[in-house]
């Protein structure tokens, strides 16, 4: 009925609404609880595709792979931003609408609550017996030496105040009463919670704008200085400026790995990675020794350095056809399995007369399998060995096109060494050297180092996000677990109870109490019982024999 009337009214007033009225109507809709609920559920649904399809923000390689494998569908998925779900137009639209709705919801509620905070507890209902929790306690008549109604009410008000209620005593009139309310904090908790969510979102945005992150591989003995050129890869925030890079430095002194050597079932599983590093906060500052471990980043100012990977870097010397050293140093081995079988690519553009290239594996503990192929049996470097194929020709680096350093494109090269050729593959044990066929040069395996993969990150939104999250959690707890309830206590003539107006003239009185929960309150019954106990203790009623 009510809804029908409302609809009719709306019909009538539509022409008069005008654009402003329409806006107001839209605003009311957007900030309704129903819309909030709908948007919340929509947000949950919209987040799901991000776990079904690879995401650029998480793993761009996987996205390219997916696009290559599914050319038709992939393109369409990409058009709908299904590889960038969390920055997509539709996902952003949902959460922005949700947050607009949130703001539209919070402001009037805050205003209303501010008013409620200044308003005394509501008037005492005529019939407390209609409340969900209520009861009576007998009180001796005044002419039997009982206290006055006003005194009872004043004392009851005190008792309620001690229990955290805000009270207003109304001692005058035929039925003196006290009205009380508690749990104003509940609504404040709710507001704090919702406002903190806005704070979290804002802080995330700040981090995305002014933060940066990058990667760097560091071999034992090498140093990293926090400047743009030192990064292997770098992703700046939208408002990043180079000045925000604090030029601290970090040197990898030693990297130690501990493998499980006791367990039969988990033999060789890593149980500890420790990088010993030397850092300086700014150029020329005092050097400090620190330990960098998984789960324990090294923090320098607002920037943190994380240990995210590690591997072996065999030290190699390559001499070219002219007999000159064309390359010397550690080469990154990319681990392919738990035994650290590592992919190695060596490009030697400085070799003359022909450029040289090598591809193969580094095996920390080389053993020969039944099929004659070497593999690594253990992650420790007990029998280190390099197995390489070699090439000569044009590496294609001179064109200036960016190339992946971990991939060698053999299309413009001629094979020198491989299992398929008479020369065979190159097998180098530690400290040995090999002369390439046709006098193209030589390669030697001189030593072994370890390297670490570092993530270097700066996110100015981090601390505010943490603060707002903590506030949200606190607000949530308060809003869910602080009960909001009202209580009334009044003194009535026995005959005038339950709304009757006539007293029976005996002067017999009772204390009536009633409680009302505002919102969820499972402990209201217990509170009523507690209140009753208090009243009974304060005014031990005389149980009279009635005829």
């Amino acid at each position, binding site marked *: 009925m009510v809804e029908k009337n409302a609809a009719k009214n709306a019909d009538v007033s539509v022409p008069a609404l005008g654009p402003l009225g329409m806006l107001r109507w839209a605003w009311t809709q957007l900030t309704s*609880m*129903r819309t*909030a*609920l709908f948007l*919340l*559920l929509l*947000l*949950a649904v919209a*987040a*799901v595709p*991000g*776990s079904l399809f690879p*995401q650029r*923000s*998480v793993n761009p390689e996987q996205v390219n792979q997916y696009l290559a494998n599914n050319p038709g569908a992939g393109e369409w998925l990409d058009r709908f931003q299904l590889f960038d*779900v*969390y920055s997509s137009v539709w996902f952003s639209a949902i959460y922005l609408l949700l947050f607009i709705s949130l703001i539209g919801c919070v402001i009037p509620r805050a205003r209303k609550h501010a008013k409620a905070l200044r308003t005394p507890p509501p008037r005492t209902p005529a019939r407390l017996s209609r409340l969900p929790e209520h009861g009576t306690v007998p009180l001796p008549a005044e002419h039997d030496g009982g206290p006055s109604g006003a005194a009872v009410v004043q004392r009851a008000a005190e008792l309620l105040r001690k229990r955290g209620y805000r009270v207003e005593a109304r001692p005058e009139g035929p039925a003196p009463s006290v009205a009380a309310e508690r749990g104003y904090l509940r609504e404040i908790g709710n507001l704090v919670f919702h406002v903190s969510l806005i704070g979290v979102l804002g802080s*995330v945005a700040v981090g995305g704008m002014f933060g940066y*992150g990058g990667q760097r591989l560091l071999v034992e003995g090498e140093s990293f200085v926090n400047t743009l050129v030192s990064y292997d890869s770098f992703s700046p925030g939208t408002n990043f400026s180079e000045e925000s890079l604090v030029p601290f430095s970090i040197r990898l002194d030693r990297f130690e790995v*501990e493998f*499980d050597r*006791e*367990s*039969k*079932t*988990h033999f060789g*599983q*890593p*149980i*500890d*990675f420790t990088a010993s590093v030397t850092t300086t906060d700014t150029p020329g500052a005092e050097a400090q020794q620190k330990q960098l*471990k*998984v*789960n*324990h*980043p090294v923090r320098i100012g607002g920037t*943190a350095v*994380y240990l*995210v990977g590690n591997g072996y870097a065999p030290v190699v010397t390559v001499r070219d056809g002219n007999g000159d050293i064309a390359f010397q140093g550690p080469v990154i081995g990319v681990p392919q399995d738990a035994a650290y079988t590592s992919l190695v690519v060596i490009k030697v553009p400085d070799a003359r007369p022909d450029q040289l290239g090598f591809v193969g594996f580094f095996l920390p503990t080389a053993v020969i399998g039944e099929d004659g192929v070497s593999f690594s049996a253990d992650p420790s470097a007990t029998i280190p060995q390099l197995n390489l194929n070699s090439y000569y020709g044009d590496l294609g680096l001179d064109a200036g096109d960016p190339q992946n350093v971990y991939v060698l494109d053999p299309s413009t090269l001629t094979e020198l060494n491989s299992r398929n050729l008479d020369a065979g593959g190159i097998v180098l044990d530690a400290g040995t050297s090999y002369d390439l066929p046709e006098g193209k040069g030589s390669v030697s395996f001189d030593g072994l180092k370890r390297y670490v993969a570092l*993530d270097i*990150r700066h*996110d100015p939104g*981090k601390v505010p*996000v*943490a603060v707002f*999250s*903590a506030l*949200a*959690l606190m607000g*949530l*707890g308060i809003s*869910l*677990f602080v009960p909001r309830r009202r209580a009334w206590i009044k003194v009535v003539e026995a005959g005038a109870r339950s709304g009757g107006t006539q007293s029976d003239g005996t002067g017999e009185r009772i204390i009536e109490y009633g409680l009302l929960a505002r919102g*969820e309150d*499972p402990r209201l019954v217990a509170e009523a019982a507690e209140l009753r106990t208090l009243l009974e203790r304060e005014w031990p009623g005389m149980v009279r024999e009635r005829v």
Partner: protein
Amino acid sequence: MPSINEQLGAYSDLFMLLAAFAYAVGFIAFAWDLAKSNSTIRELEAGLLEAEARQLAAVGGPAPVKNAGRTAASGGALVSESMDYVKDSGKRKAARVAVSVAWIGVGIHAVAVVSRALAAARVPWGNMYEFLTTGALIVALVFMAALLRKDLRFMGTFVMLLVTIMLCAATMGFPTPVAHLVPALQSPWLVIHVSIAVLASALFTITFAMGVLQLLQDGRQKRLAAGGQDRLAFMRLVPSAVALENAAYRVNTVAFVMWTFTVMAGAVWAEAAWGRYWGWDTKEVWSFVIWVVYAGYLHARATRGWTGARSAWLSIIGYLCIIFNFTVVNLYFNGLHSYAGV
């Protein structure tokens, strides 16, 4: 690093099997209690009516009228709306046996989990096997602890079945000998983040069962009110739909706060481990989805037209997301969390 006690680990495995067996027996006993609820209630009502008739006859009042609506909807004198134990509930002998067996199961199970922890000298939740076995213990413990104060025996069948399945899945699907933690899991946050997550999940498990029962009871009450047949007679041992809804809401609020904390603690850990507090890793996506669904549930309870069955559905969907997050996401989606899988 203290060494692994493989002998103790083997004992733990054995106890795990024994616990699963005890739970299976508990399941049968609870199911038996439900199955014979009809005859129990009939017996009880007959006794009640007789007593009442005798009393009334003595006073000379009118003949007793059976309070059909109330007894039919909820088991009359057998269950109370506040889920407190009532006087006659002790007459459910099968249920009493079931509870005793379940306690034995919990005892054995606790020994198994604790000995696993001692064998590995660390918290017993570092891989899928351990998540399942410890998670099952928490579910069982939470349920049994609740039983001490409230008569939730109507959910016994469900809980016993679930923990039996979890233990069997762990033992058969993911047998993992005791071992040290990989470096990525060596963090105090493993203790905090995972323990609260497991506890929250256990509470969500309870409310899931309540939600399903609420929907069944709701349908049944409507059918009975319309004069229909009672096709789910065992539901007489279950409180009314409204009582279930309110109880589930209370538990859900606690679980939701815990889940909120879990997500936040996870973010703190992710910051220390991977350099960012949030990265939409598949596990993070689903934890977020779960959080938002339950936030929706809390909103629904405050939205006109969304209380009752609809909010129960949201609670159920939330739980299905938790199951999905724990099974499919752990096993089939690759992400940063995947090492935690097996």
